[in-house]
């Protein structure tokens, strides 16, 4: 949000006027935010081993299944890296989370069996819930804000500025029974 910049009444009115004209004419297509598709040099935020651990952890939370991709298959790790870059305050949480996972499994998290990875994650969920919350919330966020996933779950986002959904107008006859009721409010 950039609303702390000076935004005068005049600029506000002008922006409203043009936005309404363009939206009404359908010529304005607003850019969709999708941080997962952006290339950046944020890889340095986590080394290869850390990213490997994060990949397997995210995929245990949201594994692939049928047509549904796993969290990492649609860029989950890249999403986390973009978050770490945008919100540096969160970096220690992610680094701590990965350290806890590696410490708990006492071996390479990526090399152990799936059942063992799940046991490690359940242990962290129980004993370090604040770290696990970070992993779960951002894994879910990376997945359910990804446009690749939307058609797979039957979701059309209709961002404002695009054409809205078609919905039937309200049918007044639905209220015929209620309309015939006597007033139920207390008259004073």
């Amino acid at each position: 949000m950039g609303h702390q910049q000076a935004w005068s009444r005049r600029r506000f009115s002008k922006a409203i006027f043009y936005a309404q004209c363009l939206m009404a004419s359908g010529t304005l297509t607003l850019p969709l935010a999708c941080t997962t598709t952006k290339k950046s040099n944020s890889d340095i935020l986590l080394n290869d081993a850390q990213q490997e651990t994060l990949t397997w952890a995210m995929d245990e939370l949201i594994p692939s299944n049928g047509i549904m991709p796993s969290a990492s298959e649609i860029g989950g790790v890249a999403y986390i890296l973009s978050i770490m870059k945008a919100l540096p305050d969160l970096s220690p949480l992610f680094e701590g989370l990965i350290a806890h996972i590696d410490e708990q499994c006492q071996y390479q998290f990526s090399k152990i069996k799936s059942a063992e990875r799940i046991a490690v994650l359940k242990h962290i969920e129980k004993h370090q819930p604040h770290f696990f919350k970070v992993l779960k919330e951002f894994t879910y966020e990376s997945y359910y804000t990804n446009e690749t996933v939307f058609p797979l779950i039957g979701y059309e986002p209709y961002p404002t500025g695009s054409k809205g959904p078609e919905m039937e107008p309200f049918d007044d006859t639905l209220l015929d029974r209620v309309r015939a009721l006597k007033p139920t409010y207390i008259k004073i």
Partner: protein
Amino acid sequence: MKDEAIDVLVIGAGAAGASLSWRLTEKGAKVVCLEQGGWIDPSTFPSLKTNYETHLMRDRDFSLSPNMRKLPEDYPVTSHGDNPPFIMMFNAVGGSTIHWQGIFPRFHPSDFKVRTLDGIADDWPISYQELEPYYNFNDAMIGVSGLSGDPANPPRPQRQTPPLPIGKMGRTLVKGFEKLNWHWWVNDQGIISKAYKNRSPCMLHGKCMFGCPMGAKATTDRTYWPLAIEKGAEIRTWSRVKEITINRKGRATGAIYFDKEGQIHEIKAKVVVICCNGIGSPRLLLNSKSNLFPDGLGNSNGLVGTHFMVHPNLFVNGIFEEDMDSHIGPMGSPLYSHEFYETDERRGFKRGYMLYGERSFGPLSQSSDIPWGAGHHQAFGEQFPHQVGLTVLIDDIPEPTNTVELDDNIVDSNGIAAAKVTYSLSENSKRMLEHAAESATQLLEATEAKKITVPDPSNMAHLMGTVRMGTSEGNSVVNKDHQVHSVPNLFVVDGSSFTTGAGVNPTSTIMALALRAADRIWERRLEWH
């Protein structure tokens, strides 16, 4: 405008401050409004982005809570008591209407006579009939979608635009109401379904709480403020009021405020009107201490900040086999029921509640309770898009022990003491919530929901009752014209003025009260000097 020319100083540019400023300016008063936030650039609204849901969750972003946003224009609010409320408000031109869902019901006539009818709380010093012309006038000013003819409410003029679509989730709830023979009606909404007064109609994107750049939602930066400014009102943004100033005779003389750079200014006016919401208004009064008012301005009787109300609620969920469309369409509410609104002693509590259908956010919000692991996709697929929300909003009977005070341990970005709220559900509210949970479950069962979830109670973003209106200094802070009892040229107009909370969303009543208060202030203009 030069400060010496100011007739009325308004503090706060939200629902009340905007409508009151326009009304007074239109009549000829010289009005200046101090607002601690700024104009919101509509191109920054999260609703324009596919990841819009994340913006309600991040610190320093578009969160509903000032405690999460932590922007310089916000102030901290600490929450205490047996049921500490989640505090929601927005500090900008437009105030909380920026986040608002646009649900626009009116109080019932009985809501103004709770003591007379039910023997609890207090009667308002005004009646529904006195407010009714202002409800009608305000509707015409901003444009309301809906349908007149509801037998659970007094008659009202034809709505300015037709009802918004209720969608499949709405029709599903209708089946339940019809099966049970319960009352229901389409909601009045401050969201226009047809073009009205140079504003575009709703295009049903369904992200009303994430900002409406179309202007279909009646935020006051798009409705009243342009008209008020055209007539000569001035808004000074990024201007946070530290305290109201008074003279030796006990009359308000203006205010001391910080600008964006932290520079301090004094502004003089003949009349001062506080419109800072149910937390901000008592906070400002309590922060305005002087020799005449050592416990805070207007607080000689100790009532400022007491009787805090928040509208306890339940978000009851039904899951269906069929696909639903809860995530599209206007986010507010397609329909409501006042089946349980008026008091029925057989239910074991006083007053009543509203049930209303409520649209949901997108898939991210609905994923939060889905378990992780091998069963994740199946569990998510059973919930989305199969969910129908039914919200319970109960009448919040005012309790003197529910309070807004100053929290001297925390300050805002200008060093002004933060607010501390304390709230516990009353026994009456607990019984009402239990009854409402059963009613909501009964309704969703009648719609053949395959799974119903009743969560713990939470609260709405409705901040009310803390500068209450009453008949005397013994029972209130302001009189029926919103005039502070002990300071004749100081007025407080917003949700804090409510004597009781009713069982409906408050915004239409706040705006009607503000228009009425403006008329009362104007009628006394000969007393301004």
